[in-house]
């Protein structure tokens, strides 16, 4: 009985981090001292946690949902296909304030983070477009100014 408890405890120690391991983190929106940003965390099982909040301020929107394993795989496949892991770590448009996006992926232990600040990179736009299609049922759209608003 004692051995069983120890085994369950040890298994639990290994299981818990694996179940909550974040494999996708997207932070999009304000890069100024004001405004709002969106935060999307996806764990290895497709469990998603989404928040939209003011910089240093209140949470304006929050939800938890899931995407399927195949959807998660398709994101990583798309990232591979777009050459996400070969992109620079940072792209800066040279503006103060404005908006940006951070996309961090962990694809089978291969980790990569790409930061865009007030600029567009086609591969990121395409990857985010795929993710936005998956988020559509939740009425969520990751937005960082990738399609310019009306002049």
């Amino acid at each position, binding site marked *: 009985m004692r051995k069983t408890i120890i085994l369950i405890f040890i298994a639990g120690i290994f299981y818990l981090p694996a179940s909550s391991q974040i494999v996708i983190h997207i932070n999009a929106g304000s890069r100024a001292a004001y405004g709002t940003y969106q935060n999307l965390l996806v764990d290895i099982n497709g469990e998603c946690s989404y928040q939209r909040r003011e910089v240093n301020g209140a949470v304006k929107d929050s939800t938890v949902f899931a995407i399927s394993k195949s959807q998660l795989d398709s994101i990583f496949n798309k990232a591979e296909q777009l050459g996400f892991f070969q992109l620079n770590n940072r792209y800066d448009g040279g503006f103060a304030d404005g*908006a940006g996006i*951070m996309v961090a992926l962990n694809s089978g232990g291969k980790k990569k983070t790409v930061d865009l600040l007030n600029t567009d990179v086609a591969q990121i736009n395409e990857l985010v477009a795929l993710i936005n299609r998956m988020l559509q049922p939740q009425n969520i759209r990751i937005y960082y100014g990738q399609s310019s608003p009306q002049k």
Partner: protein
Amino acid sequence: MNRLLFFILLLACYFLLHSCATQQYANTIERDKDNACIVRIVVQLGVDGTDADVEAVSKEMEECFKSECFLPCENNKEKGCRVIMTAIVKKWSSIEPNDKSRYHMVTMVDDDGLPSRAMIGKANDAFGVSGTWRRGAHGHTYCHETMHFLGLPDRYCSRYFNAVTGIDSVENVCSPPPDPMEWKCCNTSAQLTRCGTPCQGHEHDMMAASLNPLSCENIRDVLSNAGFGNCPAECCSSNLAYDEFFTGPSYLHFDDKEESFGAVGATLSYTHWTNSKFGLTLDAGFYTKTEKEDDFKQKSNLFSIGVGVSYKPKLFGGVSKLDLTTHALIGMMNYTTKVELSGVGENKVSRSSISANLGADVSYRLNSKIDLRLLEVDYMPTFFGDGTENNYRVSTGVEIKFGK
């Protein structure tokens, strides 16, 4: 007389247009050519948007730049340099193609919830930079972004937490360091993945949070970056008081119930300006009119003298070389009439009356010593008879300043 008035008005229009002409740079930071104790900051914004956008930006910039900033001397904080800021806002499509590089291009877009943005400009750089501004932006956002055009960086630090790598990274750092919270800036977490904090000493700075208004410190930062951080020694010891002489031709219209006529002559005035706004004035003039008809000749001479106060409301402000001065004087006017009739003789009558002088003039600064008084108009009532003579005087001429 009408031709003279037309000429004066034409001249006034020319100088008015000239004083509002496009500046050399998108950011012009310079000492006033005629007064080293005045620093002028002129920023030119070309708004690529609707007429309403131009109006909104103009309105906010006017509000933002309305207060003047004072740059005190190191050795005497009561003396120093005056800083005057002006934003010239035009619709992008209305700017001449050759002038566009001398404007910061502001692309206006609908409010999509994201912050506006601007490139960091340089003082007296030949070319403007660009920005994208959201319509209906809150607080002092347009002013904040304009200060980026003028070279100011943001004054906050920020960090973000990467939940994939588990690493908390720096996004912006304070310059000069350290970041608040013992270099930490702020606390991030899996929930609060991005945070920011105003840099130390910038808690109420517009460049740390755009809800704060523009401060003199912001303006001094712009001047320091441009090499205008100190006030010249001449401004730290000089006396603000100076003397001004004016002389020029005048037309005086004498309007009595029984007789009304116009006389031409000259006006001479002296003003001792105790500071940049208030002065004591002594004004004198002589005006004459001669009428001849066969064997009849009538000569009317008017001599006026008045003393009182002058006031400059600084109506034009900004970079304009135009200046408006008002005055209120009290004194006397002497009216002498001499009638000669051939074969009969002559008759001379002289009368005096208390007179007032309420007037204003617009002058154009040629240099620190000389102004051109484009037009002066005075209402000069007198009381020779039972009623009031509602006289007026129109003058133009040259102002010469001493001790400035």
